């Protein structure tokens, strides 16, 4: 299975935080014949182990999260509308004017408001507050809607993964199915050393799953694979871009959740130079990821994050560059080999 096929399969599956089981099933299908053991823990994390060419003195874990941002049905209005709230950091301005997919039966619905013609000048200039929005699935009464949908049902942006421009990819949930795809791809190949894998739940609602998997795996080293905000957009000055698409894997020294061990930070950049893998730093201390909880689990774990630069994170369309994703994969494999030396 090609890396891009793995990525597409995972991105087009639905799974907001707390409802990752469909994604977990897909991952298990893809890895079960290639791992030495795997289990699903009490939180829903998929924890897998695979033997490699050697057994390192230090235990190594790689983590990526399975959940995606989205919405959740909170109730019904008398005229058949579904009320919802957001799950994870969804930008309120990307919710309006879209089709969404509701619940396990993947019922189509839309999020709209009164027409632009009927809005006051002030309304036209102000982002529609999410708590005033609702989902229309075509029902006319509360009873009709309740027969089709339950409170707590997940609401996702529609699957729409695809190639894009010159070597780019677009779609929902690339954050962080891309990290999952890199782990699946590693598992389906020969590894330089033994490795534990944590496909974790609930990152988008506070990095909760990885706390559990890091505790039970109890590694010496951890590598968090993530997608990180790239602001290489029109008119943004270089220091504010954070990182750029096309410049390779992102390894920063610090973000909002973690101060990374200098040895691992340096090692990643060194590997990049030695092995011709493009690696870039971050121009701002911004963002955060599962490393933030992993590194302080139990007595502390030496943790580094390797990220793919990603535009429009937490929107229905993340945009990434394929070459950057491959750089993350190659750097992760090379780092495994170095850590096992």
């Amino acid at each position, binding site marked *: 299975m090609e890396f891009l096929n793995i990525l597409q399969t995972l991105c087009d599956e639905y799974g907001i935080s707390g409802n990752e089981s469909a994604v977990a099933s897909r991952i298990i299908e893809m890895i079960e014949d290639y791992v030495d053991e795997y289990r699903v823990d009490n939180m829903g994390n998929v924890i897998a182990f695979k033997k490699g060419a050697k057994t390192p003195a230090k235990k190594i874990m790689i983590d990526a999260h399975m959940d995606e941002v989205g919405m959740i049905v909170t109730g019904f*209005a008398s*005229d058949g*509308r579904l009320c919802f709230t957001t799950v994870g*950091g969804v*930008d*309120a*301005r*990307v919710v*309006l*004017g*879209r*089709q969404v997919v509701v619940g396990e039966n993947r019922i*189509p*619905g*839309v*999020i*709209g*408001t*009164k*027409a*632009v*013609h*009927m*809005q006051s000048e002030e309304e*036209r*200039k*102000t*982002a529609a507050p999410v708590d*005033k929005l*609702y989902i*229309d*699935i*075509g*029902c*006319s009464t509360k009873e*009709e809607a309740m027969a*089709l949908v339950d409170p707590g049902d997940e609401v996702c942006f529609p699957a729409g993964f*695809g190639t*894009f*421009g*010159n070597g*780019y990819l*677009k779609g929902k949930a690339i954050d962080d199915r891309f990290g999952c795809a890199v782990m699946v791809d590693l598992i389906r190949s020969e590894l330089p050393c033994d490795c534990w894998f944590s496909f974790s739940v609930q990152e988008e609602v506070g990095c909760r799953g990885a706390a559990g998997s890091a505790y039970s795996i109890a590694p010496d080293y951890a590598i968090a694979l993530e997608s990180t*905000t790239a*602001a*290489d*957009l*029109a*008119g*943004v000055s270089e220091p*504010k871009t*954070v990182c750029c698409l096309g410049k390779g894997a992102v390894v920063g020294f610090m973000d909002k959740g973690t101060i990374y061990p200098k040895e691992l930070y340096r090692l990643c950049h060194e590997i990049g130079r030695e092995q011709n893998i493009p690696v870039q730093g971050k121009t*701002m201390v*911004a963002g955060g990821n599962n490393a933030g909880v992993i590194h302080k689990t139990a007595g502390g774990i030496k943790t580094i994050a390797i990220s793919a630069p990603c*535009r*429009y994170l937490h*929107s*229905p*369309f993340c*945009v990434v560059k394929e070459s950057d994703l491959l750089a993350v994969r190659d750097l992760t494999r090379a780092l495994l080999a170095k850590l096992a030396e």
Partner: protein
Amino acid sequence: MTTLEILRRLCDADGVSGEEGSACEAAAELLRAYTDDVTVDPFGSVIANVYDAGEGAPRLLLDAHIDQIGMIVTHITEEGFIRVAPCGGVDRRLLLAQEVVIHGTRPVPGIVGTKPPHLTSGDEAKKVVDIEDIAIDTGYTKEELLQWVAPGDRVTYVSSFAQLENGRITSRSLDDRAGAASILHTLELLKGKKLPCSLTVVFSSQEETGGMGAATTAFRIHPDAAIAVDVSFALTADADEVKCGKMGEGPMIGSSPILNRGMFDELLDIAKTSGIPWQVEVMGGRTSTNADHISVAAGGVRTALLSVPLRYMHTPVEVIQVSDVDAVGELMAKYILQYEG
């Protein structure tokens, strides 16, 4: 072909104001089932002479606009992002992270870019981005883009046509492909019947930018009477009940000082006596539809207005109920059969 299939075919075709080509072709093809006399006039409107009742017979015109709202390319930045202006009444609150297609010498897919949280602190996150400040990301450099894209190219939303509950559907461009579909339903009902008047159908261009298509074709045809078919506001929870029609409750028969009172009375009578559901939409003056232009074309045209109730107008997720489209078509067919001029 069912009304649903016709709607899908028409909505999937592209035709932003002033560049209605592909939508015109789809519409012309559907009209050819009823007459060989189908032409596209110099303004881009499709004209079909459907029935000739002989010399001296009155001529009735049925009009729906074939153009859709969209955007138009104004500039390509050094970084390769595309700047645009609106083409018709765009709701800019919903633009961010929308999937679009730029119709250059080949279609180029794009995503409307959004700034990440570290660049949109505080109040900016609540503000709607001015349309001249949005940037479409195509994954291409400026040099690459210049091969296919130029200022003046039209931009359309990507949306997937989907069926909702209660025979409702969602798509972009139901404004006014729903009107076109109801006219095609009229033609289907009249097929093979002897009519008391000659009948011409116009699917007109450039309604969303000012109604020029209808103004010019109505002048050219100079009919005795006309029915303009458009969409109007169906009630949503956040709108004013007295300003909206209701979805599923049939044609909104227009009443306004600029519309012909006699035709209004006749249409209302027919609806009442034949059991077609109906509702009245009263406007205090101009109607913001093609009726405004047709009624004053050449020496003046007696004009009526029928509207299909529609939610979320001018968004990629407009919603209508198919039974309303059929009911509009049925009302027009009955009106034509008893037409006395």
